[in-house]
């Protein structure tokens, strides 16, 4: 457990306190879990727009002539797409075993010499060590400090962004742009990415710049119904889309293939750490795999809940919640790969009672 002395506060902390947010310790960061209610905030994002403080995410800058080759060797995604299209690329950092160290986003442009890498807070230190350990000559890894980040998400997000920051709302999904601030060091990144399945953008930059942007967006978005939203809604929103959460659905003990995320592995690119193990596993076939399920009666599976098929155990829930959009329990679980057939019936053990469940395809929430 973290003590109060080593817990980190977001640069937006004072704003959260003023708006009455309930704060929790999230991997050593004191962050809002909710402002009013998880369900209200969830619906706000699905119907208008929500603003999230994501300052806990680690921001690394990789730069130098060899940056492209370095990143290409580290992640399962294809960084060539950054150079071709100036878009953010999602990928896994894998161990040689194929186990997942983290899932990350890499943003970089045509020069191939400078990339912003966004990593999870729970893996931040481990990732920095992995980057430094595998670093190539001719590139440098900076763990950026005094940074902040926010995400604005929802069907009304783009119109609010358009009114506040020029050039971002017009970008295609996954694209990004560097925005110069008022002062030379105020440069920040606007990226058309997110973790909710809605339109919107994420902004990464110096703490003061992002704090100003937070206030401007809230002001400009008031009429459209923009509200600050906490980590509680962020979790129900991401799970409705089937997006994995590192530490729950992804870990060093499971490969990208076991996580059912082959789409994040770009086989056509050159070698990367973990490739050989992943190829071998693909050829041999999977014993276990992550799959999506919904609960057919009342009940909510939580991480750690066991799942059964025809009376036989072997399934373990890694993410589970109540879906505010679907009004039922949904979850992700690891289990025998043969279970992963949409429509297959299972049983979930909830409070010592077996409740019927069904394997479904992702996303849970379809527009």
């Amino acid at each position, binding site marked *: 457990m973290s003590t109060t002395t080593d817990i980190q506060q977001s640069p937006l902390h004072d704003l959260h306190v003023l708006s009455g947010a309930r704060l929790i310790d999230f991997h050593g960061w004191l962050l809002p879990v909710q402002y009013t209610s998880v*369900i209200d905030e969830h619906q706000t994002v699905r119907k208008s727009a929500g603003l999230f403080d994501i300052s806990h995410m680690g921001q690394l800058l990789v730069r130098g002539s060899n940056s492209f080759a370095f990143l290409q060797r580290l992640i399962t995604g294809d960084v060539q797409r950054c150079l071709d299209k100036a878009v953010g690329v999602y990928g896994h950092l894998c161990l040689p075993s194929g186990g997942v160290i983290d899932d990350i986003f890499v943003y970089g442009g045509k020069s191939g010499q400078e990339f912003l890498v966004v990593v999870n807070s729970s893996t931040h230190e481990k990732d920095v060590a992995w980057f430094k350990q595998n670093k190539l000559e001719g590139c440098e890894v900076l763990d950026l400090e005094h940074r902040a980040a926010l995400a604005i998400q929802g069907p009304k997000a783009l119109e609010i962004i358009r009114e506040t920051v020029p050039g971002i709302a017009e970008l295609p999904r996954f694209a990004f742009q560097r925005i110069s601030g008022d002062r030379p060091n105020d440069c920040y990144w606007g990226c058309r990415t997110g973790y909710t399945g809605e339109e919107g953008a994420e902004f990464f930059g110096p703490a003061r710049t992002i704090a100003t942007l937070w206030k401007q967006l809230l002001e400009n978005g008031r009429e459209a119904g923009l509200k600050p939203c906490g980590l509680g809604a962020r979790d129900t929103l991401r799970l409705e889309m089937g997006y994995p959460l590192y530490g729950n659905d992804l870990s060093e003990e499971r490969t990208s293939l076991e996580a059912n995320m082959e789409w994040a592995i770009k086989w056509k690119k050159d070698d990367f750490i973990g490739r050989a193990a992943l190829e071998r596993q693909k050829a041999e076939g999977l014993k276990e795999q992550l799959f999506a399920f919904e609960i057919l009666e009342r*009940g909510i599976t939580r991480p750690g809940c066991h799942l059964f098929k025809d009376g036989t155990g072997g399934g373990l829930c890694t993410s589970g*919640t109540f879906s505010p959009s679907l009004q039922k329990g949904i979850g992700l679980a690891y289990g025998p790969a043969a279970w992963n057939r949409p429509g297959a019936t299972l049983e979930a053990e909830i409070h010592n009672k077996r409740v019927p469940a069904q394997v479904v395809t992702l996303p849970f929430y379809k527009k």
Partner: protein
Amino acid sequence: MTNTERRYAKSHEWVRVEGTIGYVGISDHAQHEVTDVVYAEVPKTGKTLKAGDEATTIESVKAAFSIYAPVSGTLVKANAELENDPALINKSPYDQGWMFAIEMSDPSELNALMTETQYQEFLKSPGAAGPH
């Protein structure tokens, strides 16, 4: 004790007495800590409970919570409305969000529970974190 007066358990249930029957729910503080209730089990009537026994469970987006009987007796009524609208526990914790009623076997147990003033004091103490 008037019929609008509530007594509170340390586990954040309240009990309001009408004759020999005690109506039970959770406090406003507790509903706030629990967050949005999405399922509320409507307990079966007829069971005998001792003060401190688990009477029912509710579930929020966050987690499941046990609700304990603040007094001993027989569970004689349950609020069936909660099955369709569990959010009543959040919206109206002291009225429409009541959960069940107990025919008290020992009304003197009420004296061991906190008054409104004592409960408000208790909430300021470090040990008063929400239900677990």
